[in-house]
């Protein structure tokens, strides 16, 4: 299971990004079990990279290849399978259903391809300190709480790669470490890779490789 970046550069970036970046316009291969840390200041294209890897956008030059299949050739159905079975994501902007409860938001993901039984939702929610929020509509939860909902949601499915786009921006250190611990355990269960993009280096992410975007 490999995720490869081949000379990828957003079309809206000019070429001088290539000299400064360790990712853009490079050939990189991420394999299962790796913990990749991507340190990226604002405006360096961190969210773009995550969206490219997740197959949501394709405004880039170069290719992204998953298991020797180019994402450019994926059909809408292929992407559905890719996101359901192989790659999970925590969006920077979370993307929850505002009118659904926390429980419903997580269940909507879980039922697609359940890696855990439904009881696991409550267990994880309690572990991250939002056990009492399961019945609340997600729009009335604080941003920090929503961030934890998005994290739990991303752990409901099987995956080879877990993409994290500033997942702790609204969490204090204690909650962040707690959530990180959970994600590491879940990644280990699947022997999956984590690709973690954030503004700066975080000490409690035991990365195996680090790149500056």
């Amino acid at each position, binding site marked *: 299971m490999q995720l490869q970046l081949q000379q990828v550069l957003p079309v809206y970036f000019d070429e001088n990004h290539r000299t400064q970046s360790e990712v853009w316009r490079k050939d990189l291969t991420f394999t299962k079990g790796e913990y990749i840390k991507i340190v990226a200041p604002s405006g360096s294209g961190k969210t773009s990279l995550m969206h490219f890897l*997740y197959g*949501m956008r394709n405004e880039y030059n170069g290719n992204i290849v998953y298991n020797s299949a180019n994402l450019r050739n994926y059909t*809408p*159905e292929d*992407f*559905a*399978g*890719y*996101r*359901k*079975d192989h790659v999970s994501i925590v969006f920077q902007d979370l*993307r929850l*259903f505002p*009118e*659904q409860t926390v429980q*419903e938001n997580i*269940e*909507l*993901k879980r*039922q*697609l*391809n*359940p890696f855990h039984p439904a009881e696991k939702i409550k267990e994880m929610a309690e572990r991250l300190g939002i056990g009492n929020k399961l019945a609340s509509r997600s729009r009335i939860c604080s941003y920090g709480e929503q961030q934890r909902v998005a994290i739990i949601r991303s752990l409901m*499915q099987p995956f080879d790669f877990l993409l994290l786009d500033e997942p702790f921006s609204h969490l204090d250190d204690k909650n962040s470490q707690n959530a990180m611990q959970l994600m590491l355990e879940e990644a280990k269960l699947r022997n999956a890779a984590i690709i973690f993009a954030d503004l700066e280096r975080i000490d409690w992410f035991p990365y195996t490789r680090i790149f500056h975007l």
Partner: protein
Amino acid sequence: MAVSFKPIRSLMQTGTNTGSRWFSYIGLGIGVLLLLCSIQMYINIQQLLGSESQRKDGSDFISISKTITNETMGQLEKNLFNANDISEIAAKPFIEGVSPLTANRFRVQLSAGDIIPFSTDMFLESLDNNFIDTVPPNFTWQEGQNYIPIVFSSDFLEIYNVFAPGYGLPQLSAETASQVVVFITCYGPNGEKQTFRGSIVALSDRVNSIIVPKNFLDWANNKFGNTTDVKASRLYIKTKDANNPDFLTYLQQKNYKVNKDKTKFGRVKQVLQGIFSGLGIFGLLVVILALMLFSFYLQLMIARSKDNLQLLLMMGYSPNWLSKNVSKQFIPVYILVVLVALAFTEGMQWAFHHFAMFDRPELSSMLHWTVLSTAIFLIGLSLLTNYRMVKKLLYKLV
């Protein structure tokens, strides 16, 4: 494990738009009702008029004669059809067959024997058997045979029954008429005469005449009338459509007279069928309009739920699965709409059969199978257009 659509249903925002949805359901129902009723009425007309019409093998049979004017009066040549006239008519593309009505060229007297003291001079005609609507198997004659079968116009029987009481004659039913044995006496120019026995073997609605087998009349014309070249005063024409404008123009040009009564029935049927075809087309248009309205409603619904649907697709929901399930939501209501329309049509048909047609045996109180299959087809059509619509819109969101 099958993915459930239940939690997704609430993500489809339909709430504020129930008005336009119900409008399209009602529109669809009315359109389907119009369409089904028209088809059923069209079939009713076929069944009602089909059995009584002048049609045989799907053709019209009509008799034509030359119009006798003051100028042609007395000139037999001009008032009869000769062989040229006949072959000219037969060559026209709208004519499927021509047969002359050949009349007797000698004096014929008919008497009813002792039972009914009735005797009259009369005429006999012959016509190709294919042109007679009722030809029983015993309608044959061979030389030396003393018995002549007769096909009698039912109109003539009616006329007889009108004047019979005034002459002290018994009125006859169709059954009795065919049991009466009559004596037909043929007179030759030199005083010879021969009497045959005859009886009515069938009544004809189509041919206004007294028809005897053709070979008998040919033989008798030859024997008593001394002529083989008999010109016809009337022609029977077989045509696909007696209302064909080419045909009618041709008749007018040649100054031929057509029995309008015989084509009138066909015309009424045509007008009625035209009306119901028009109504059916209107119904179909309403159905299309309703489906369009519904597709607008769907577009609106999908546009309103765009964010939610996009997020579902982003989470890994298959666009094909979503399209199927979104359009599946409307299956029950579509089936219900068509079933209600079908029930109304059935009610209409029952009322029409029972109250307007007094349970006539040609009709059925039940719907014809074409109506049922149209209903099924319409359900399928609505579901298919829906599914394609939703699928197209959802793939745009990916």
